[in-house]
Each structure stands twice: as C-alpha cells, then as structure tokens.
C-alpha cells in the first residue's frame, strides 16, 4: 500500500528537553491514523513538523512523496490543515472566508462548505471571533471539506468541543474520509469517540512510542484483569503485566498477552477471583499510559 505520510527517525528537543527520539511512522493511503498521548508528549510537535512549522532536530518527513520544507507550494493544495483550537481567520465572516479560500483551490467545493454552514445557527455577516468554539470547529471543518484535499492533518480537533459537536465532527469526518478515500493524520488528547473514527493508532508516552497498531488489533488483544488479593500483597509480575494497581484488596492490571498466560501468571501470584474483560480505547489508553 502506498504511504501518503512517511516520517523517519524524527528527533526533537525543546532546548535540552527531549520530546522524542527516532520516531518513525507511516500513514498509508485511505487510512485514518490517530496520534494519541497525554499533554506534553509531543503530539503538537509532530503536527508542527508535518505542517512545516517546525524544523526537527533530525529526521525527515514526506507527505505525498515530497519532503516537508522543500515542498512545492502547490502541493499544499492537496493537504488540509486544521490548527489546534479550530483556528481560522477570526476577523472574517463565513462568507468572506469562503470567498478568500476559494481562489486558492482549483477543486473548491463551495456547496460542501455551505451545506455544513447551513446547519449552524449563525448569521452570514457574523464574524468568526464571535462564534462559539463548536461553531468555529464546523467552519474549520467546512473549509477543509470544500478544499477537498487528499490528506488531512488535524491537530487536537476535539479541544474545547462539547460532546455533541465532537460526535458531529467525528461522524462527518469519518464518513467523508471513507467515502472519498482520504488519508487522515490527527492528534487528540480526548480518547472518547476516537474508536468511532480512527483506523490506526499511535499511543505516545513521554519521549517514546508505546504502541503503534490498528485499533481493531489493539482492542482485540488488550484486556483488563481484576481480582482480589490478600492484605500485604506484593506484586512481582513480569513486564507483560501493565500498570498493575492495588486499591485495598482489589487488583487491576492490563496486558496484551494471550488471556490464558496472563491468568496463569496472576493466579500463580495468589490473585483470586480473576475477571478478564475487553476494554474501550479509552481504557486501553489509560491501561497503557497509566493514570498519572
């Protein structure tokens, strides 16, 4: 499968603080990849590198086969960018902003934009800076849909959205991307709803990638285990048991390993009444990254 986005060995520091080292990933055509991580793990850094607003310390990124930084400006017609917080030109109205962008993109789909705008309860002359965060997100999304790019790069699109708008955004985007075979790279720190949207996920911790795999595969393997332990229990699990925690006499732990092997290990250490269950993406995220 053709990779639309390729990043090789990205390393970046802010001053002396390492953000990550040797980060590599690909986004194949037609896939939706989510870069998930807690705040400060380098999600926005990655987006900034991908959109050409940050020169990484080392490593290279390619979008649509062109190296970022040496990209032909016209290639940007094929890349849609959503800036963190759904930022758009605050000083324009929805009509003005449509008029402005339309002349930059040959395949401009005016109707796609106005279809979305018609659902917003905003006056045509209302400036964007007087809209709610949710309304602004729809303007930003509408502009990307009208641009009709091959690749969408979305930075923390869930930021500041209430559940309704978040769901609206997710559903609209998923349907659009799948129908038109678009490639999407996005980041989020809110994991709810991501299951509905993304095909592949990269979960980041400080300075490194924890896992990188299709969401289905992750949710198929990843399980939560609970059980009871006696007082004074001291865990001696190996590294396949992730983030075990004990609250009074209850134990909670996660693992990607086959169920039988995990139950066997837990049982051998004296855990009783072991219950194994599938989890949501959000639980898997917490299981992988820990609560803190």
């Amino acid at each position, binding site marked *: 499968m053709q990779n639309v986005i390729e990043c090789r060995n990205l390393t970046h520091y*802010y001053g002396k603080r390492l953000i990550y080292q040797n980060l590599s990933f690909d986004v194949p055509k037609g896939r939706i990849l989510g870069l998930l991580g807690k705040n400060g793990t380098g999600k926005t850094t990655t987006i*900034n*590198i991908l*959109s*050409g*607003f*940050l*020169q990484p310390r080392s490593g290279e990124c390619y979008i649509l086969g062109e190296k970022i930084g040496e990209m032909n*400006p*016209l*290639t*940007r*017609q094929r*890349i849609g*960018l959503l*800036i963190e*917080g759904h*930022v*758009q*030109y*605050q*000083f*324009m109205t929805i009509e*003005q902003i449509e*008029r*402005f*962008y339309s*002349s*930059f*993109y040959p395949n401009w789909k005016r109707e796609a934009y106005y279809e979305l705008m018609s659902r917003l309860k905003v006056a045509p002359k209302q400036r964007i800076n007087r809209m709610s965060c949710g309304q602004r997100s729809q303007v930003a999304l509408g502009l990307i849909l009208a641009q009709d790019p091959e690749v969408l790069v979305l930075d923390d699109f869930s930021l500041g959205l209430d559940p309704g708008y978040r769901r609206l955004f997710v559903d609209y985007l998923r349907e659009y991307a799948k129908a038109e075979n678009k490639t999407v790279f996005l980041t989020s720190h809110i994991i709810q709803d991501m299951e509905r949207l993304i095909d592949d996920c990269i979960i980041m911790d400080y300075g490194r990638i924890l896992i990188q795999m299709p969401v289905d595969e992750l949710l198929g393997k990843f399980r939560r285990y609970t059980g009871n332990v006696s007082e004074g229990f001291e865990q001696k699990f190996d590294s396949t048991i992730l983030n075990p925690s004990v609250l009074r006499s209850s134990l909670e732990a996660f693992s990607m390993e086959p169920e039988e092997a995990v139950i066997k290990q837990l049982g051998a250490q004296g855990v009783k009444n072991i219950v194994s269950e599938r989890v949501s993406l959000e639980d898997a995220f917490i299981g992988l990254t820990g609560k803190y």
Partner: protein
Amino acid sequence: MFRAIFYKERVKTIWYALLALIVSVGFAGYMMLRVSRALSLQGPEHIWIVMLQRDVIFVDMLKFVPMIIGLGFAIVQFVPELQRKSFKLTLHLPIRASHAVGAMLLYGVVALLVIFLPALALMWGYLQSVLPTELWQHIIFTTIPWYMAGLAAYLLTAWVAMEPTWRMRIVDGVIALLLIRIYFLSATPESYNGFLPELAILTALFAPLSLISLTRFRDGRQD
C-alpha cells in the same frame, strides 16, 4: 491568488485605513486651516517673515502622525494573524510563504501611500496657491522624512510583530526604535533634503526584514 491575499488584508484593515485616511487628511487640512487663519488674521507679511526668520513651518503637529498611522496599520494588519497562531493558515496557503508575506507588505505600503499622498497633495495644493515656491517647498520637503517614517514604522512593526519569540521581539523592537530615531534627528526644517535618497533606500531595506521573522516562525522558534 494575490488578489485573495489583498482581499484578506482589506477585510482586516478597511476600517482602520478609512480612519487613518481621515486622520491623515484631516490633520493636513487642519494645518492648512491654521495657515489660512494666520494669513487672514496676521497678514501674509507676518507669515512669510516668521517662516524666513524663525524656522516656523506651521505643520509641526504633523510630525509624528504618519509614524503613528504606520505603526497602527502594522498592528491592525499583523496582530490578528498572530493571535492564536493563525499566521499558520497564511503560511499553509498553496503559495510561497515569502510571496504571501510580500503581498501583505505590498498591500500595506500601497495603502499607506493612499493614506499619505492625499494629505501631501492637499497641503501642496493649498500652500502653492498662497506662498512662493521657496516657502511651500520649505514646508513640503520638511514633511517628507515624516511620511517616510510612516512607511518605516509600518515595515519595522510588521517585522517585530511577525517575530515568533518575545525575547527576539524585544531585541528587534529596540533596533526598530533606534532605526526610527534616524527620521527625527533634526528639528531644523529641510535639514533632511540632501539625505532623502539615503533615507528612501534605508526605508526600503526594512521591507525584507520580515522574511527573517517568517523564517524563524517556520523553523518553529519558541520562547
């Protein structure tokens, strides 16, 4: 596509530009009104003589007006771009970033000329009807460096505003202040006459500085 950039700049600045035009022409008109009143109250003899003997030029109040207009124009044009980093939107447009910034600056310079030239034309039109060549040139030439300072203040403020880090913004701001001082070094009328070509070149040199800020922005420089 450049028309679209100009359109965006117009949306941002149209109200400020109209206000600035009114202030610019209004100030010039007010100055001319003062000259006219002085001419009718005190007689032309008095006016000519105070100009000849006491360096009076009647338009001193205009001195910093173009500079303030230029500074304000850059703020009105560039601060909305930098709020919440929406400058990234401009840089993501499918045109060269340097062309986008160049078009923005070109718009600003042309707009400032449209704001300044009617004021100069108004003063010229009136003064040449009541004063001999030597005296109206004396006044007009004295104001030219002030108008150049307007363009310089605009270009320098744009440069400082686009700089992504506060640390360098302060450094650049100090440099810009010192550069602007060059336009206001002498209170003697017409003292800049022989320096106007150099001053024009100096002013033009401020335009490309914004590309340094642009490059730093694109390299992701942060405080």
